[in-house]
């Protein structure tokens, strides 16, 4: 079923009682050509592009919980591609080319809103760092421009640019095409579009082991819903990547950390863009429902507790209230933490592993959502062709052996 005006009118008249289910919930088959472990945005996008671009139809996505119940449903929805290093900028900009038309491609409104991402500078060093980003982005053909403080204020009127602020705004980088999208809709849209192409989406199905044949190549997964055979397995499970890799006897340069976010009570429209400050570690945008969606840096230590410490969110809110004094009396509705997997150079790993037939897409750290379509696209290519796409070739395990790290943490001058 495709969404269209006639269907919307018909269902509106019938009080929305007759919408069919968006994707079926099949029993897993005994055998697939590809099994994707992880039904988050990246896993579902991978299955979709395997089906639509590589003509593979016998695919399963197995998800431990439910769709939108993991990090996809916990992130802060920000989309941008103004990374400094050319490998990262190319990868994230590849994703941005998909975001523009994703709702049409999936026939599902992912609510992509190119409202602009404003990254603030608070010191002479910030100005240098952000201008370097802008020049690097310009050379790569990526949208990014410099705003003086009064121009930043004009773009985002509630921003305090007073000189006596604790973190005075010295200017800002603006990526106009950056913005937000509805994170749940991205998972649901990819799930629905992939299912329509014959992909089985199997929820409540946790992978307990990875099967290998006598040659050492993968031949399937053990799950809580029985064994599933497959010659190719793609792992896209964010915080739990190292556990899945360990099932195949592999170690990875990845550690898992809590990343917290929070939302305020809903407000009338007050924040017309995304605002990021790397220096004081806070970012915020306003959801279509009116809540401010707020995030900061990851907690400092390895943990799977999905909690994180209150002083980290406290620090984020202090910083935000300095930038927007009007937010001081806002109540916060709820906060939460996801588990993010972080590589030593703060860049993702999208690669084949040393085990034939086993592929991994991990290490997105604190910023994987923005990459979802591009990540799925290049990971599907890697799985289908058994070799990396041009754009993810630099993002392999090999960089930790050759020393060609893609050090975005140092490049951005932040903990990322």
């Amino acid at each position, binding site marked *: 079923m495709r969404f269209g005006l006639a269907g919307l009118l018909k269902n509106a008249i019938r009080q929305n009682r007759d919408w069919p289910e968006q994707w079926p919930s099949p029993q897993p088959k005994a055998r697939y050509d590809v099994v994707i472990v992880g039904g988050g945005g990246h896993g579902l996008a991978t299955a979709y592009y395997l089906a639509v671009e590589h003509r593979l139809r016998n695919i399963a996505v197995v998800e431990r919980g439910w769709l939108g119940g993991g990090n996809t449903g916990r992130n802060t929805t920000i989309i941008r591609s103004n990374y400094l290093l050319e490998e990262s900028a190319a990868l994230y900009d590849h994703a941005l080319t998909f975001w523009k038309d994703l709702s049409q491609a999936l026939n599902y409104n992912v609510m992509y809103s190119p409202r602009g991402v404003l990254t603030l500078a608070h010191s002479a060093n910030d100005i240098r760092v952000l201008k370097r980003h802008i020049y690097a982005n310009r050379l790569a053909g990526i949208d990014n421009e410099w705003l003086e403080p009064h121009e930043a204020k004009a773009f985002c009127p509630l921003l305090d640019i007073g000189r006596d602020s604790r973190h005075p705004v010295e200017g800002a980088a603006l990526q106009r095409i950056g913005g937000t999208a509805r994170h749940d809709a991205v998972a649901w849209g990819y799930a629905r579009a992939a299912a329509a192409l014959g992909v089985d989406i199997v929820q409540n199905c946790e992978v307990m082991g990875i099967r290998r044949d006598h040659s050492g190549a993968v031949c399937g997964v053990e799950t809580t819903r029985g064994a599933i055979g497959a010659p190719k397995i793609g792992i896209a499970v964010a915080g739990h990547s*190292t*556990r899945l890799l360990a099932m195949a006897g592999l*170690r*990875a*340069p*990845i*550690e*898992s950390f809590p990343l917290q976010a929070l939302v305020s009570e809903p407000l009338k429209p007050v924040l017309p863009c995304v605002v990021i400050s790397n220096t004081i570690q806070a970012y915020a945008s306003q959801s279509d429902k009116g809540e401010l969606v707020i995030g900061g840096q990851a907690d*400092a*230590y*390895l*943990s*799977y*507790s999905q*909690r994180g*410490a*209150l*002083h980290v969110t406290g620090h984020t809110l202090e910083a935000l209230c300095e930038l927007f004094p009007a937010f001081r009396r806002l109540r916060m509705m709820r906060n939460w933490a996801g588990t993010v997997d972080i*590589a*030593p150079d703060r860049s993702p790993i999208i690669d084949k592993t040393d085990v034939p037939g086993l592929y991994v897409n991990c290490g997105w750290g604190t910023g994987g959502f923005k990459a979802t379509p591009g990540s799925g696209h290049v990971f599907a290519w890697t799985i289908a062709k058994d070799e990396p796409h041009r754009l993810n070739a630099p993002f392999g395990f090999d960089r*930790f*052996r*050759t020393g060609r790290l893609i050090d975005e943490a140092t490049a951005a001058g932040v903990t990322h």
Partner: protein
Amino acid sequence: MLLIPCPYCGSRPEIEFRYAGAAHIERPADPSSAGDREWSAFLYERSNPRGVHAERWHHAHGCGHFFNAQRDTMTDRFVTSDAAAGGTSP
């Protein structure tokens, strides 16, 4: 916030400390014969366990000592803490 048991000062709040990563990482015994793969494993690969994790903490805003501790990464509860072998004071 974690309450971290510094072996020198007793339990103190997390904001006094810096996390210093996994403990007991062994440098290749014969550096000149270790290849890229071995160095890469030493520098970057970690066990990242769900459960008890041996790690180093630096009491940066306290006594300044480094020490080892074991913490359950599922609950964030500390199991033990010890003065690190070869730990340094300021």
